[in-house]
């Protein structure tokens, strides 16, 4: 990582990295408010499969998104070891259910590549880019894109 830090004159960004399934993901540290253990959710009627429900975050009703399900890899079998990352995008707050938080990572803009053109799928909708650091590949998620899907109102018939 140290060699990447030496790029001078470029804007540096810090990312929190976390695991969901086998893959490592990153999210801009500025969007992350806190990380907390799994608490059981209250399900929302007719929510898409990737919305686990809502939890009480100190009086705020917070929707929780299962990242694994969102990326089309099946629902997470939750246990006490899972964590919820509380993400704030603009005025919107949501929780992101992941397996574990691993690291804090510093990267410059040049370390981040765009999504490969051939790899477009359900995942690429929410991916901002790919960071390659120390032979690790970290998929950087665009939190605003994830969050936007929760507030776009869908008609009743489609939500079912």
């Amino acid at each position, binding site marked *: 990582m140290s060699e990447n830090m030496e790029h001078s004159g470029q804007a540096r960004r810090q990312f929190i990295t976390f695991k969901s399934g086998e893959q490592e993901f990153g999210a801009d540290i500025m969007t992350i408010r806190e990380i907390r253990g799994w608490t059981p959710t209250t*399900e929302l009627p*007719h929510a898409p499969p990737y919305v686990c429900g809502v939890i009480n975050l100190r*009086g705020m009703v917070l929707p929780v998104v299962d990242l694994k399900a969102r990326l089309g890899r099946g629902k997470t079998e939750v246990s006490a070891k899972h964590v919820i990352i509380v993400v704030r995008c603009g005025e919107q*707050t949501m929780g992101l259910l992941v397996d574990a938080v691993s690291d804090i990572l510093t990267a410059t803009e040049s370390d981040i590549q765009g999504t490969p053109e051939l790899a477009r799928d359900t995942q690429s909708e929410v991916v901002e880019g790919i960071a390659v650091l120390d032979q690790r590949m970290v998929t950087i998620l665009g939190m605003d894109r994830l969050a936007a899907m929760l507030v776009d109102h869908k008609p009743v018939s489609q939500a079912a």
Partner: protein
Amino acid sequence: MDPMESIKQTYFQECEELLLAMEEGLIAMEGGEADSEVINAVFRAVHSIKGGGGAFGFESLVSFAHHFETVLDHVRSGKLDHDAPVVKVLLRAGDILADHVSAARSGQPLTEGHDRDVMEELAALADDETSGGGEASADFDDLDFTPMQIEIADEEATAPAISGWRIRFVPHASLYANANEPLLIVRELQSLGDVDVEVDLSRLPSLAELDPANAYFAWTITVQGGATREVIDEAFEFVAGDCDLEIEALAAAPDIEPLPEPAVELSEVDGSSAPAPNAPAIQTAERKGPPAVEAIAAVKQTIRVDLDKVDRLVNLVGELVITQAMLAQRVFEAEVQGAAAVGSGLVELEHLLRDLQESVMAIRTQPVKSVFQRMPRLVRELAAQTNKQVRLVLEGEATEVDKTVIDRLGEPLTHMIRNAIDHGLETPDERRQAGKPDEGTVTLSADHRGGRIVIELSDDGRGINRERVKEKAVEKGLIPPNAMLSDEEVDNLIFLPGFSTASEVSNISGRGVGMDVVRRNIVELGGRIVIASTPKRGSRFTMTLPLTLAVLDGMVVGVGDQTFVLPLTHIVESLQPRKEDIRPFSSERSLLHIRNSYVPLVRTGELLGVKGAQSDPSKGVVILVESEGAGRLALTVDAILGQRQVVIKSFEGNYHRIEGIAAATILGDGRVALILDVDGLVTRCRVNLNHDQITHQATGTFG
């Protein structure tokens, strides 16, 4: 925000309060309880509105307020009696002044001649009492008002004697640089006679742009008494080159009331003390005049706080209460040593938290007066339009309710008063024939009852014509022709959508919105409305509303593995149905048989996709609810878990709206429970009925 803009906003806020004070005073005068203090208060209010308006250059407002003020001044000085006809004109003038203020606020000028009638009446009144004032009224149309010279009075023409001086004093930065002190000058002037100082902050920029070395304040100083021009000039001798100075003679007007300085909030003055360190001192000097001090003492100290801040506080306190409950539970479960001592501490904490919660909730409350005060004007206008004589009696104006409730009370009340006067009250002729006094009485009252606010609107008019209501309902297909209805049921037909009793559409209440809209407004607020009517004696509408929209009385129900809250206002009754009462109707629908009627049965669990819900309604509980669009529904739930007051938490902003869910709440155990929206459930039912077709069409895109 542009500093000028924010001062303007403050001015308009002040105006609202001043207009209310004015109206209150005028109504007291109308009721014959006018002592000099009341008249003075009205005068001060109008004067302050005029003064501030001048500073912002609202010319038509100032010119109207000026005429108004002149008449008030005559009343105050006893030159004019405040008998009924005069007060009537004053009340109308008050209405027009309010129009001027709202026109200035919205930036849309009033239509030409809107105030002409009243202006002429005011002029006539002023005329009556001023000797040889004929020319004054001729002058009214082309009077030119200089915005800053707030207290200019056209009495100059009629009374040339000099009673004092008005000094406009605008220090330059160099004045302070040369170690001069405006305070000393003011003190000097005070030795010459009664001094009234008004500070003009309009040039004051926001704190960020403020240059401490610059001078931003200006003062208008009125010196009463017979001081000569030379003496005045002498006071300013040392600063003459370092300031703008306008000195003019004051006509012998009746003593001018010092302004209670409405546009200046203390905080603003503090924040700006840098450029003129003596400013606060001058403020006190200004307030030395006894009438001003009285005026200030009469006004309760208040601060303006952003509603969001209060809401955050309310939220946090709500959380604190839940956390305390959780903590108590944990301590109890853990059976720790010394649990008794901890327990008693927790009980103490609980009491404190309850007090805290109540106090915090009280911050959001306001007296209903702010809505009630708008009604007298409405009544006056309606009385004039319908040629009826109406007396409005207001009771319990001090009753306090949450601000959100108050904000949404105005519209339904307005509509109901229109109805009461237009349909309820008879014309004076009709009333005389019925042996009633010419003047009809409409009473609007508010009261606290059992944790809710009860608002009643009653009139002594003709009552509801049940025959006609019934006829109309049949005509519109709202009830079958042979329906047997009790009197009460007939009366309540007027709340049905699409019902309007006006035999001909009048421009007052027959505007396509009927009592159904009123009822909907009230229900949206979590309230109920009922009517009681006696033919020939009048009608009474009773509304019960929650004290706040932040909490709701709900029934907590279990459906499968989930807990939901049903608003109590929608619930008619709950029952355990027998198997034979449930009749299949179609492949998807069943009906529930309750006392000779059939009500559609809605399987809540199925509708909301909850796992593990009881599928046999006869093994669970059925809750009969009243919906807005589809009448009664029977919702099936597994069990009733209790009834409690819950704090409403919206998740809008974090998640899209869900049809059938109104909001969420947090239960005592810290878990989130969803609050059901009965009308949304109806919509969802209807969609589900067509569900097959939709899924067919949607398969292509969603498969």
